[in-house]
């Protein structure tokens, strides 16, 4: 049945549009909102080259709401970019652990893509598979195999 529907609509590979944090800035309780805003400021910092300040801002976001999955996602991206894949993978794990099931699908592409990027050195074939999955789920965002801070924003 599902296969038939997929075939009919031709959307087997595509998932829902990957999340942009500005879209979820007003979701959740007050703590979550404040925390997400700090993550957004961190992403702006990162886009402006203030890398250390950005990481600090993500950590502040966790100080406000330590169960904010977006802060872990942003930190995972940050550590991938800083060339610390193990650290990035741990943050991805933590992001998944904190994710609300309702958000899972919209983050799936980011998780897959960042996992692929983090595994590039250690396990190239697994990395390729993850990146391919990310590109399939969100070709516009992950088509180039890279998640820019602004794409997450």
């Amino acid at each position, binding site marked *: 049945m599902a296969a038939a529907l997929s075939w009919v609509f031709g959307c087997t590979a595509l998932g829902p549009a990957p999340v942009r944090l500005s879209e979820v800035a007003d979701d959740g309780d007050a703590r979550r909102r404040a925390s997400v805003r700090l993550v957004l400021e961190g992403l702006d910092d990162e886009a402006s080259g203030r890398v250390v300040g950005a990481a600090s801002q993500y950590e502040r976001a966790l100080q*406000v709401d330590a169960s904010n999955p977006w802060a872990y996602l942003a930190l995972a991206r940050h550590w991938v970019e800083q060339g610390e894949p193990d650290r990035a993978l741990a943050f991805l794990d933590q992001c998944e652990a904190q994710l609300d099931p309702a958000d899972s699908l919209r983050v799936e592409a980011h998780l897959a893509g960042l996992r692929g990027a983090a595994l590039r050195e250690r396990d190239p074939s697994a990395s390729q598979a993850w990146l391919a999955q990310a590109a399939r789920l969100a070709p516009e965002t992950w088509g180039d195999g890279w998640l820019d801070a602004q794409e997450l924003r």
Partner: protein
Amino acid sequence: MAARKRKAARRRPAGRARSKKAARRSRGARRGWKIAALLVVVSGFAGGFVMGRHLVRLDRVVTERFEGRLFRVPSRVLSAPTILYPGLDWKQIGLRDGLDRLGYRPGGGDPLPVGRYRWGEGTVLLHRRPFEHPTRAEPARYVQIRLEGAEIGGVRDLQSGRELGAFFLEPELVGAYHGPDREQRDLVQLGDLPQHLVDAVIAVEDQRFLDHPGIDVRRILGALWVNVRSGGIRQGGSTLTQQLVKNFFLTPERSYERKIQEALMAILVEARYDKSSILEAYLNEIYLGQRGPTAIHGMGEASRFYFGKQPRHLTLPESALLAGIIQSPNGLAPRRHAEAATARRNLVLRLMQDQGRIEPAERAAAEAEPLRVSSTASEPGEARYFLEALRRQLPDFYGQETLATEGLVIYSTLDLRLQMTAARAVREGLEALEERYPKLASDGAVRVQACLVALRPQTGEVLALVGGRDYGQSQFNRCVQAKRQAGSAFKPFVVAAALEPVPGGPTVTLASRLLDAPLEVSTPGGPWRPTNFDDEYRGEVSVRHALEKSLNVPMARLAQDVGTDRIVSMAQRLGIESALPRVPSLALGVAEVTPLEMARAYATLANGGIRPQIRTFEDVVGSDRRAAERLPIAFERVLDAGTAYLVTSLLEGVVDRGTARGVRSAGITGPVAGKTGTTNEERDAWFVSFTPELVVAVWVGFDRPRSLGIPSSRAAIPLFVRFFEDARGGRARGSFRPPGDVEQRMVDPESGALALVGCPARAPEWFLRGTEPATVCPNWANRREPEARTARRAPGVPEAERDAREPGVFEQFLDEWFGRR
């Protein structure tokens, strides 16, 4: 008469005898003069030599000090910044107290000056000071905080008109690593000081500083005259250079010998160094007051201490006050002797005007200003155990000497408000215990101790740590140094090891049955026979029941099935680092561990099996203001999320129904999981607990283990309750969310079998997917075909077969309904 004779003799012609005598006398006189001259020359040389040697020695002393490290600057530790945001409970975070602690003062005017706030009806105006931070320095910011009931309604930046999502207050001073002298200073460079501060100091302390060579002869003569008239040493006459020399090299003794020494050294200092260097050294050295046992030295620290700001932001009257109190920092202490301090400040202002350093109008305006010292005065003493724990986490090269001298700034993870709450909970909690159980205080010299550590489970950040009831009396940090038996607080590790899926291993679920009956285990030391706390046996009980009621015997049985190796491995993976004995009684908590280890291990459970690295600091900044060290957040998955959730669920049951139900009866609401632990003879009382956002470990006991005479539910839980009520208003936020591979089924509490509709008793239970019970409750099964619902253990049963046998809820209902019919 003699003179006349000599004149006459000169006039008279000399007689022979007389002339011989005179010649002899003359020769003698010449010889005498020669000897005298020789003596003078020799003694001159000798004196010169001695003096020269002395001067060389003094010069060496001076240069060694000036060329080397001029000052010992204790490293300071700052708290995590407070973050304000809409929706935050401003009462719970103690916003007003926080502003006071930070040295903000109520003020008027529009806009408010930096460092002031105005608390109005539903609004707080605050002009926050700029503050330094290694990664995110913040500029001064003028904001309006709207208060809506107990919550912050919004924060608006009044300069830009923008609503802020989050607003930072600067980190607070937690404490410092002092050397034995307990001097606190914040080094400043001359260029960073306002000119009016320099002018004020020169005006009142040494107005000819820029002209004299180290000593001021006019001033010395004036002082000498006063002293001669009074018959003692009443007045100094010291220049700034002499004061600096005295503070650096000499004793406070008042004697002419010491004054000469001081003058010589002052001249040497001036000969070797320029005026700017001397002035900068003086302004960093000078004693300016006392914060408890800590001496405040230098303008940098004094500016922070009295006005809560950096010296470059000092105003003219503030500068004049600081210059004024140099004469007698305690006698003129502005907080205690405001009138005298004001008079002294105004004297400085008058001198500044007299010497042409300020205009009359400036003086008048400055004199009209009231003294506005910040309200902060004391260094929070409650955090000293935390400082000690932080020191242990710093890399080895930050030794005690380095910390006491290098002037580092350490940005810690401490939540200062939570820390004060924890310190109060420990102090008052123990006093209440002693009052309720006087036996605890029967030996006056040996007092019962406690420790409390609070972590953020996701990040491992230490938010509060109190290692004992009074650091002044005992520096032994029980949170990180005391290794005590964990007692039943260790049991969750046994259960985690049992529940964790192991290929080919037995499947244990929370509903699995354990036998609570006499048990004897052979050990090399003889048979081991565990007993329950009440010496009774209950027959078959579930894993959940065994843990919730903290039954030893079934837990020991479970541990026998699991094996010591797996239990040790599990405890270590969760975060226990102490050596664990591989003995059967390990299951009941004979291992000696620290409260911090226990907190970390429970944090791993709270965090869904991801073990956080303990983190007491974020950044270390060197004296050059550059980041020297960073400890990033780090964690590692060590247990699958499903198993971690099952243990969490068990520990929630301990709080809701089990040995920790005192937490609920005390009124604590929301998701709380935890485990009590009471060791043999009630020597140690533990309560290790967590909510989705906070892990708290409490230990109570004597340093030299002896019986408390009360269990952990009466010793440790009250401290936790006290802390949690203050810290979180008694309400835990968030929820423990089951991961995808965990599902809930109804079970029969008596048998542990699935309880379908029609079973007499049903209770929900959590299972890892695929490990649900293979049988249904006996009563229900009796009414069915016996082969229809036979034993169905998940492992070992082929997947297809299992799926085929597994009924859905709707299917169960239909089965039941049709069955009845």
